[in-house]
């Protein structure tokens, strides 16, 4: 089994639609309506993180990490490839805010992202153990597999909380 480690203590940055698998620290900064999802196997102290932007891929396949319906199956496959077992995986999610109420009333992408991610996790029998979702605020999310899969959410005012 190969577990990648990052070159230094800086977390690997995961941009919109990107994902990583491993035991090194990872982060997605400035999530608005997007969702940061982490999957973690506590026995192996490894996992994966993805930065999802939209609920449905509607048949698109070029950037599977961008959509909830393709990102979660993709992560499961990548975890399996890296030898990280599915049966003990726990999930945490953060994001899904509605920052521009005036523009997005009809679209409500943040909430649709939350609902879709939760429903797919449930279909896959993956336990969602923590969430910090919804509201109006942007979030940066830090995932530290080495510290028991710790997920820290930071807000624009600098306040942090562990979920």
């Amino acid at each position: 089994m190969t577990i990648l480690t990052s070159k230094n203590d800086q977390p690997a940055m995961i941009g919109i639609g990107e994902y990583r698998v491993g035991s090194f620290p990872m982060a997605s900064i400035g999530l608005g309506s997007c969702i940061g999802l982490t999957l973690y196997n506590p026995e192996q102290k490894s996992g994966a993180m993805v930065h999802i932007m939209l609920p449905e891929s509607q048949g698109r396949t070029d950037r599977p990490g961008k959509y909830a319906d393709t990102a979660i199956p993709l992560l499961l496959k990548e975890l399996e490839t890296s030898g990280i077992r599915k049966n003990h995986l726990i999930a945490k999610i953060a994001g899904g805010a509605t920052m521009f109420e005036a523009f997005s009333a009809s679209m409500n992408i943040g909430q649709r992202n939350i609902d879709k991610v939760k429903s797919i996790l449930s279909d896959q029998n993956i336990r969602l153990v923590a969430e910090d979702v919804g509201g109006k605020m942007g979030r940066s999310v830090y995932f530290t597999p080495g510290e028991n899969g710790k997920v820290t959410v930071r807000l624009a005012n600098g306040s942090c909380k562990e979920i």
Partner: protein
Amino acid sequence: MRLSEIQKDALQELGNIGSAHAATTLSQMLNSPIEMGIPRVVAVDIAKLSEYIGEDPSAMVAFELQGEIPHGGYVIFYLSRDSAIRITNTMLGMTDMDRPFNEMDESALREVGNIMVSAYLDATAELLGFVMLPSPPSLVIDMAHAAMQSLIAQMQEEIDEVFLFRTDLICEEHKIDSDIILMPENTSLQKMLDLLEQMMKPAA
């Protein structure tokens, strides 16, 4: 969408004219000179958005583009949180930097954004003969990346790359550093390119 150098130059000129008008209105509102940076048009892969727009606390006054094309994209007046406080302090005759935003600040920021963005879009409409009207302003004081990401997620066309027309507007006297950003949908970008191309054709 790939842009040729000529197309890029033409779009930068369009951004230049819009930004210059916006800068003039800002200068009048602050009663102080404004320095304008070189307008840039950059294609940004959304996965790399954080290299262009960070997570620092910012004020963003966003407008949806309406008019001939109903969902034409967005224009955003973007300032750091500190610059936003300085701009409202200057306008409202206050000096306290270390304070939360109140309703007066928010309303002043929306108004400044409104006047600047209207000037920007009036100028581009006059040049192109193509009207893009701003929606009422929507103000977010939060992480800039989170706000931009939310706008991109609700664009009409599914995209992996956005075009940002970005110009720095700086007021040395009041230490205000701001940006005006136009982020067109592909339909309005294509329309702008077509109109610019027509203008550049030699008269028959």
